[in-house]
């Protein structure tokens, strides 16, 4: 059959270095590499290559590299390469385009247009190596005023709180969409770090109940793996209303992925499709949401904070205001650059808004309405570094959710083909021989390293501003300036322009 178009990547093999050890052949689940039995030379079928860099990393003689093909269509600013290829794919299949990981389009990344302040002369900066610096945060409803009994003692009855050693958590990724070893790495790292990871909507594997104190259990519209024991196992319960990568649509894990432990953990038969309907069919209003929030509070005897996770969409401030009145303790907002195991391309790339704008709008709205203390705010949807965290906190977040960054720490190379289930790095797959490639001990170590490094950087950035705790930084927009932003963008972000 004629090629639809020239392959996107080329496999470049340096024949002088290649020793035909066939490592690449064994490592590539996409079956790109084969050996020619007659000549003994390695061959490659680059039509199947997804540029995951696995073979490149493991080639012992560094004989391989993968390059973007320079064979392209005639240049056209309107009809770009990808656009043309998508048309070909659809014309030949009649299919809906399916992608994974976050929105790759060149939309503005506001984190990169915000600059952080530092102290000079008029107030001293702080050296975090020598002076105490607090990165601990508590998530949950806070009382709006101090109450005292007749004797003047403070009445100390706080609603349930999550205690985090630093303002970062691992966000929801279900067992099924990622592997057992990936979940194990996240769970053990969260435990060691004193933060939390999130089960996602696929239930909690029986082996991981022991990490319950560092686990957030999710309840989504499909209610997979949800039962009383599961709800009580976690430190908090998250109601998933939406996901940044695919707002407004549900999930569908095909029956072929519902095997073995995944089937048991989701509590559905092997081979049956796991369908999460787009909405929760019992939630059509804030009042209905309140009902789910309180049924969960009753089932967990008011011992656990309830998180409501929504995608960042238009009118997010009004939506969040409703959620803050629903009894939820924490609102998680997921921006449109957030990752996913599979999402229709058109939705991933065109629906939702950047989390920076959503966060600023929500924080302001809740303050204006005097209900900011009703809830904590957690934001995700592409938090890539410690400086993103610091900027998010200064814009009003109590903590951040990271997922893609955590997967990168586990070895993900962002090839964006998670939906195939053939992840060569042992993350987005259930194939045993691939899952084995991710050693959960090493995975944990890398996650811990990453977070420890971020914690140092957060302290340094705060110290530079003369701020010694995350609590003080929160909502401190005076510490931020925009660069190259319009009046309107600055207004929404609630910050001044650099130079002002």
């Amino acid at each position, binding site marked *: 059959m004629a090629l639809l178009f020239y392959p996107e990547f080329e496999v470049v093999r340096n024949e002088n270095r290649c020793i035909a050890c066939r490592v690449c052949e064994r490592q590539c689940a996409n079956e790109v590499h084969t050996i020619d039995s007659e000549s003994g030379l390695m061959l490659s079928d680059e039509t199947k290559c997804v540029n995951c860099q696995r073979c490149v990393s493991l080639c012992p003689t560094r004989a391989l590299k993968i390059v973007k093909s320079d064979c392209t269509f005639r240049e056209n600013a309107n009809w770009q390469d990808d656009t043309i290829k998508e048309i070909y794919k659809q014309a030949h299949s009649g299919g809906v385009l399916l992608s994974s990981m976050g929105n790759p389009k060149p939309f503005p990344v506001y984190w990169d247009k915000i600059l952080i302040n530092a102290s000079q002369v008029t107030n001293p900066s702080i050296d975090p190596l020598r002076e105490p610096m607090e990165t601990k945060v508590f998530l949950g409803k806070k009382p709006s005023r101090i109450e005292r009994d007749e004797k003047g003692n403070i009445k100390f009855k706080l609603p349930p709180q999550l205690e985090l050693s630093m303002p970062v958590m691992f966000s929801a990724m279900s067992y099924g969409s990622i592997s057992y070893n990936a979940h194990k790495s996240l769970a053990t790292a969260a435990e060691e770090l004193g933060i939390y990871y999130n089960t996602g909507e696929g239930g909690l594997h029986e082996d991981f109940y022991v990490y319950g104190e560092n686990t957030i259990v999710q309840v989504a519209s499909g209610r997979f793996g949800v039962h009383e024991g599961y709800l009580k196992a976690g430190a908090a319960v998250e109601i998933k209303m939406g996901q940044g990568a695919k707002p407004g649509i549900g999930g569908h894990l095909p029956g072929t992925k519902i095997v073995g432990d995944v089937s048991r953990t989701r509590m559905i038969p092997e081979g*049956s499709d796991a369908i999460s309907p787009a909405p929760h*069919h019992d939630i059509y209003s804030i009042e209905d949401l309140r009902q789910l929030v309180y049924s969960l509070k*009753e089932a967990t005897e008011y011992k656990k904070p309830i998180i409501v996770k929504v995608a960042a969409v238009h009118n997010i401030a009004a939506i969040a205001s409703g959620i803050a009145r629903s009894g939820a303790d924490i609102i998680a907002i997921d921006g449109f650059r957030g990752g996913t195991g599979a999402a229709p391309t058109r939705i991933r790339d065109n629906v939702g808004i950047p989390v920076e704008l959503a966060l600023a709008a929500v924080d302001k709205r809740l303050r204006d309405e005097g209900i900011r203390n009703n809830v904590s705010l957690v934001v995700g949807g592409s938090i890539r570094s410690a400086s993103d965290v610091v900027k998010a906190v200064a814009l009003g977040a109590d903590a951040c959710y990271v997922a893609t960054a955590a997967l990168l720490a586990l070895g993900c190379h962002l090839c964006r083909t998670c939906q195939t289930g053939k992840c060569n790095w042992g993350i987005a797959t259930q194939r045993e021989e691939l899952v084995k490639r991710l050693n959960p001990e090493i995975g944990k170590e890398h996650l811990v390293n990453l977070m420890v490094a971020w914690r140092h950087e957060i302290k340094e950035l705060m110290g530079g501003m003369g701020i010694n705790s995350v609590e003080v930084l929160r909502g401190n927009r005076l510490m931020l300036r925009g660069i190259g932003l319009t009046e309107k963008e600055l207004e929404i972000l609630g910050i001044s322009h650099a130079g002002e």
Partner: protein
Amino acid sequence: MMIDVTGLEFNEINQKLRESDNKVILQGCLGQRFIASGMKDKNIAIDGIPGNALGAYLNGASITVNGNAQDAVGDTMNDGKIIIHGDIGDAAGYAMRGGKIYIKGNAGYRAGIHMKEYQDKVPIMIIGGSAGSFLGEYQAGGVIVVLGLNTNGKLVSNFPCTGMHGGKVYFRGEPPKSVFPKNVCLKLATQEDMKYIEKQIVEYAEIFGYNKDEILNAPFTVATPDSNNPYKQMYVAN
């Protein structure tokens, strides 16, 4: 043990329930929500009308309502039994994965939505009267039986079994006239089906004082997802 719940808030009722004997009667119930949420080993009778989300996440307790019930009864229930001596509101048994819900009267919209099953855990809901629209929507497992007793032949309103991809819905009497999606097939219940139904109806009839043979003396139709014509979206990797 009797508890008068007149004027009590739901959290107070559940607190009392947690502290009470295993056998409890709640009197004067008037719309309080979330009663018995997640409870295990209680036997609760309710006089009056409990509010929404009765027995959500129920995990083995049994609840009898001597009257009507409202919406979202048995949401994500795992085990136990809920008996309603009247009608039930919308979204009964949402995502229930085990246990039984027996309703003497009619059910509202979306009964049994996204019910599921796993191995020997097969939830069942029996509706004595008729069901509203969207019965068994997204059903992924479990069994729903609609008896249509005292309803002049009416069994179910519009759009039953939309999105159904597992489980079974049985209808008693003439097959329902509603339009079913093309991904669902309707057949006459087999002998094996009838044996299964009989087993379930024995307890139901006893609870509500019906004669089981009279109930069973009618044809039953069974709706199941059509495995030859499943819901599918054609995707192309991008």
